[in-house]
């Protein structure tokens, strides 16, 4: 069974449609990367799986049930967590408080879950009392992912996690993504660094103008000449 199924979705943010009949499927434990030119609707497609897009027609199913018109705070309880591109931490809260808020709806095991996040990102354990807003871009990305992982989601949505990071932090972020996936979490992400992202992806989608253009394995898209010329710099 598919973990996430987006079927022929039309929608946007209240104005005209940004998504014009786009579809996407992913299985549990997949890493799926959405690439495409600016304005293709990549982030919008991802947000349509989190109740952040007003969907005019089409269907979004997660884990077997229809979530097309659910609110984000309901979807998060079903096992999808979302890391926005910007403003993805609580800047004046400490690292540990960011994680506690991420786990707000957990009834129990909050401490155990925080320790699990620290085990995944030892750097965060060292900085647990530091305000998230005072950390470097790469560390802040760890806090953002850690917060989203507090609910032990089945699917993690990442919106351009390496945007604005220095090359060393970009590598580190992709390593974190792989590591999170190794722990059994499906990943759906939008990425500008298409080459590096497709290299770790099990599937990739190329979007143009709100519609599917190509769909293949990550390696397949990397080998596709048209895709290479369009987005990967030749």
């Amino acid at each position, binding site marked *: 069974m598919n973990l996430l199924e987006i079927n022929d979705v039309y929608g946007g943010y209240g104005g005209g449609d940004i998504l014009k009949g786009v579809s996407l499927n992913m299985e549990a434990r997949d890493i799926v990367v959405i690439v495409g030119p600016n304005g293709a609707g990549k982030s919008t497609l991802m947000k349509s799986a989190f109740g952040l897009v007003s969907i005019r027609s089409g269907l979004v199913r997660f884990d077997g049930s229809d979530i097309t018109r659910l609110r984000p705070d309901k979807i998060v309880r079903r096992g999808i967590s979302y890391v926005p591109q910007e403003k993805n931490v609580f800047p*004046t809260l400490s690292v540990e408080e960011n994680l506690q808020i991420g786990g707000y709806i957990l009834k129990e095991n909050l401490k155990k879950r925080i320790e699990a996040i620290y085990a995944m990102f030892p750097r965060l354990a060292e900085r647990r009392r530091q305000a998230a807003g005072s950390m470097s871009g790469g560390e802040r990305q760890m806090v953002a992912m850690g917060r989203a992982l507090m609910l032990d989601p089945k699917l993690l949505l990442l919106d351009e996690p390496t945007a604005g990071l220095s090359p060393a932090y970009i590598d580190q972020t992709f390593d974190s993504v792989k590591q999170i996936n190794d722990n059994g979490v499906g990943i759906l992400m939008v990425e500008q660094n298409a080459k590096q992202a497709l290299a770790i992806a099990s599937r990739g989608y190329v979007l143009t103008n709100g519609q599917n253009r190509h769909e293949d394995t990550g390696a397949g898209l990397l080998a596709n000449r048209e895709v290479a010329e369009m987005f990967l710099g030749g």
Partner: protein
Amino acid sequence: MATDLLQLLYYGLVYGAIVALGAIGVSLIFGILRFANFSHGDLMTTGSYVALALVGWLGWPLWAAVAPAAIATGVIAIVLDRLFYRHLRRTAPVILLIASFGSGLILRSIVQIIFGPDNHVYRTGISIPFRWQGLVITPDSLWVLGGAIVMVILVHLFLSHTRMGKSMRAMSDNMDLALVSGIPAERVVMWTWIIGGILAAIGGILLSMDTKLHPTVGYHELLPIFAAAIVGGIGRPYGAILGAFIISLAMQYSTLIISPAYMPAVAFTIMLVVLIIRPSGLFKGTL
């Protein structure tokens, strides 16, 4: 001269502590509900008059009236939210601001209808100040300072150690992220009014101990309170505390150079300068 400076420092701390109690509430309400609550001064007035009713009509000692008056004011704040603000959540902030101006007018008028337009005091008689190192200190001012410090510590513990307090800071920090984390916005809003109302009431009672009760006692403190919240970085409760002492000390020390009649102008000037130079305030608020 040195004694004068110390005396002004003492006045500044006492008044700053009162302003802080109002400014924390204004700052939290702005951070979470995204509007400037112009009825906050009138919530202070309401709290001080509820305490007056318990003291004057039922003969309670003032210390026993503080907690019930504070809680009653918190409840009144929630009722105002249910009656007015809740229906306006999705409208422009200026509409909420005008609504708060209106609800402040309602509170002020009700106080005046019930208690009349004249001044009141919690108890009559002269409280004899004592002198310490040349400083004039009234027993009431010590209670004011002590009470305010206890409240600030309690607020700090609430914000830093409880789940609801952290949720309030999280919502003030990043509303969208708080919502996608599953934080129940309406419950946080309710708690924000309770805390804001309690602090306003205690601030109002302490203010009325320091001066007199009057239907506009809190309304007149709006300017220093907003100045404190803005200087500290609106939406940042710890900034509001710091801002309150900066504003209060500046107001007190200004009397060395200019007439005390200009004290509100000093608060206003500092607020304007901060808004021009660094609108996010000392603690990088959400404005």
